[in-house]
């Protein structure tokens, strides 16, 4: 029997022993983990996958770029693949586990230096292990007039990890990759590439001008396995003098059309500048309630019951959370425009003054839309209990008819599996990230199987209508890559072969294999 809980595909145990011994020489034994106990944090997933298929062989924790280069030399020699993570909090997408069994998790949490925060040009340069919390504390301690844009797990998650996965937040800087500028990437052969202006010796414009000269490369290092990102520039929003969050509630499910048709022109024109959200009634209810306290029937909660519950709990069938940013004067002017538009569409516009200081749903949205950290949304995991969650996240046009169509499609499939439609739309500039949390009890094998089949069917049926997801979990990466077509897959494979001929970087990430 092997002394390892898994081995990389095609690697003999004797070779793996040698690789582990070399990693220990480079990093010290404490930073090379391979017992089941020590690997436990990397085995914890919320998605409905079998962990055996994603069990890492080891986890190694470098603290410098130079150590990463030395690690890659060993990996190339023994053909041992590494799966880089920044903080590994990719909850609902696979957490810290690799796409395929036997990979070594390259845990970059010890590379946690905030290299620079420039308060004039409003940017930060950070390493992978820096958390939003760390950056938040740094800014607060120095009293800098800058805002972050954290995702919900911000207190434990990493700006770099989130951005390379193309995650989102809720301020005007919500589309994270769009507001990043300049990467340092260690390639499989150990070369260090700085993208954009970073390739110029002595450049001081790396974090202020994205494109540099010639082909722009940053994108190929997101959701990919072409390199290990070791530094990232992110733009920070100057704290505005005034901020006014609000919610618009709509009573009927079909009102999603009115909500989106109203918000789109305001968002494109930047009257509403932020990545707000349009959440359904069950999302609102699920964040602050246990399902069993509200509904005890079989299967998904029927529409009529959802409508009743929404009314009883004072939430809309749809709830648009968004905000105005600027000076008191500009906000006053914009407020007239937005309230007139939303009221004309049949929505009820409410502010903190209307809701009082203790509305938990409003308060967590208020906080994230101004870049504060909160984990209140984790309340979703009390809805069913049992720790199961998987995000289904198709992209929609910011058009009412499209969001209505996606909602109908999603609900039909989810309800067939007895799963509630707990969903929201994140308001992009011209798109909507349709985010559905598939909540299930992970301790029940039957529920796990249902959740998995449901996701599979969602992917197929959405693809048939031309809809693709913006991101997926470690269990479905090959499938989603296929749905995006053969030419993209073939180009990815060619780049992979050129940059990583031994396939040592995250095989299977986004469906890209050697």
């Amino acid at each position, binding site marked *: 029997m092997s002394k390892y*809980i898994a081995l990389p595909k095609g690697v003999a145990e004797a070779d793996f022993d040698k690789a582990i011994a070399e990693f220990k020489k480079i990093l010290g034994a404490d930073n090379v983990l391979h017992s*089941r*106990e*020590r690997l*436990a*944090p990397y085995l914890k997933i919320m998605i409905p996958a079998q962990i*055996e298929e994603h069990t890492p062989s080891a986890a190694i924790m470098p603290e410098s770029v130079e150590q990463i280069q030395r690690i890659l030399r060993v990996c190339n020699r023994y053909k041992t693949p590494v799966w880089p993570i920044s*903080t590994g*909090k990719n909850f609902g997408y696979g957490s810290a586990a690799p796409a395929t069994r036997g990979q070594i998790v390259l845990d970059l949490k010890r590379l946690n230096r905030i290299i620079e925060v420039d308060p004039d040009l409003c940017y930060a340069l950070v390493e992978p292990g820096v*958390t939003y919390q760390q950056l938040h504390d740094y800014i607060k301690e120095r009293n800098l007039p800058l805002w972050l844009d954290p995702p919900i*797990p911000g*207190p*434990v998650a990493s700006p770099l990890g989130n951005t390379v996965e193309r995650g989102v937040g809720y301020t005007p800087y919500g589309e994270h990759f769009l507001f990043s500028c300049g990467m340092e990437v260690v390639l499989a052969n150990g070369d260090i590439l700085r993208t954009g202006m970073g390739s110029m010796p002595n450049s001081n414009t790396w974090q202020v001008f994205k494109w540099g000269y010639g082909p722009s490369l940053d994108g190929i290092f997101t959701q990919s396995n072409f390199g290990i990102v070791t530094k990232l520039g992110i733009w920070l929003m100057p704290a505005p003098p005034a901020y006014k969050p609000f919610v618009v509630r709509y009573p009927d499910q079909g009102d999603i059309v009115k909500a989106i048709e109203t918000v789109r022109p305001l968002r494109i024109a930047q009257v509403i500048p932020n990545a707000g959200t349009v959440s359904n009634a069950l999302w609102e209810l699920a964040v602050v309630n*246990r399902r*069993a306290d509200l509904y*005890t*029937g*079989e299967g998904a909660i029927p529409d009529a019951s959802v409508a009743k519950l929404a009314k009883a709990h004072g939430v809309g069938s749809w709830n648009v959370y968004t905000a105005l940013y600027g000076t008191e004067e500009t906000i006053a002017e914009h407020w007239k425009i937005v309230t007139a538009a939303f009221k004309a569409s049949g929505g009820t516009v409410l502010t903190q003054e209307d809701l009082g200081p203790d509305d*938990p749903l409003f308060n967590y949205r208020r906080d994230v839309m101004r870049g504060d*950290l*909160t*984990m*209140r949304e*984790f*309340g*979703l*995991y*009390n809805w069913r*209990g*049992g*720790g199961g969650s998987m995000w289904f996240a198709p992209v929609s046009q910011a058009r009412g008819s499209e969001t209505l169509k996606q909602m109908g499609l999603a609900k039909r499939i989810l309800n067939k599996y007895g799963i509630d439609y707990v969903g929201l739309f994140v308001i992009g500039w011209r798109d909507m990230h349709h985010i559905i949390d598939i909540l299930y*009890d992970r*301790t*029940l*094998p*039957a*529920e796990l199987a249902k959740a998995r089949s449901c996701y599979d069917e969602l992917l197929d049926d959405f693809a048939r209508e031309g809809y693709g997801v913006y991101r997926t979990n470690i269990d479905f990466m090959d499938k989603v890559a296929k749905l995006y077509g053969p030419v993209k897959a073939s180009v990815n494979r060619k780049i992979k072969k050129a940059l990583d001929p031994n396939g040592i970087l995250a095989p299977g990430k986004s469906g890209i294999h050697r």
Partner: protein
Amino acid sequence: MDRRNFIKSLLASGVLGSSPLAAQAASDLFAPGTAQPVLIVGQSGLPHADELVARLERVFAAAGIDYVQARASGGELTDYTHVIVLLDRVPGRRVIGVMDAAAALIFQELAAARGAACALSTHHRFAAQEVRHCCISAGLDTSIVWSDSLADHAERIGRLYAGTLAGPESAVDRSAPVVREEPDRAADATPGSLVSFLITV
């Protein structure tokens, strides 16, 4: 004795005493020895949590395990700043949490982000007459799942944590049958649920 059997033996009805078998099973991670009392963090306002915390206290007292208790509401436990303050106060401590799923996830992830190790985590689903438990341990490749009557379950869970904490010095009367594992058992339609866990902060 492997980890799985060790846990199952702790789940068997019996009393704590002294056994070399437990010593074999406990690793530094599984039973981190420390002079500091164990901190039990119970979520207030959840009757099942109250009951389990009370039972833990009774079992710990009987086993001579030193503990202190902290209460926090669901609102406090989902306010991550509150949890951070709590974690700041207990470095090096063993902490048992008894709380709802959301609070447990937040607590465990915040603790893990500062290097905490989780020895045991158990999901409890309550139905009208019985409780279904699903326990994962740092050393197990799969979880252990079993059901107990509502009347008995807390005692068994109390013993599980007590035995795990006491580790090398502890013992268990393993003459009684261990739990019958039932991974496929269906869920009741009207359950409440709870999570308990043991971590070293």
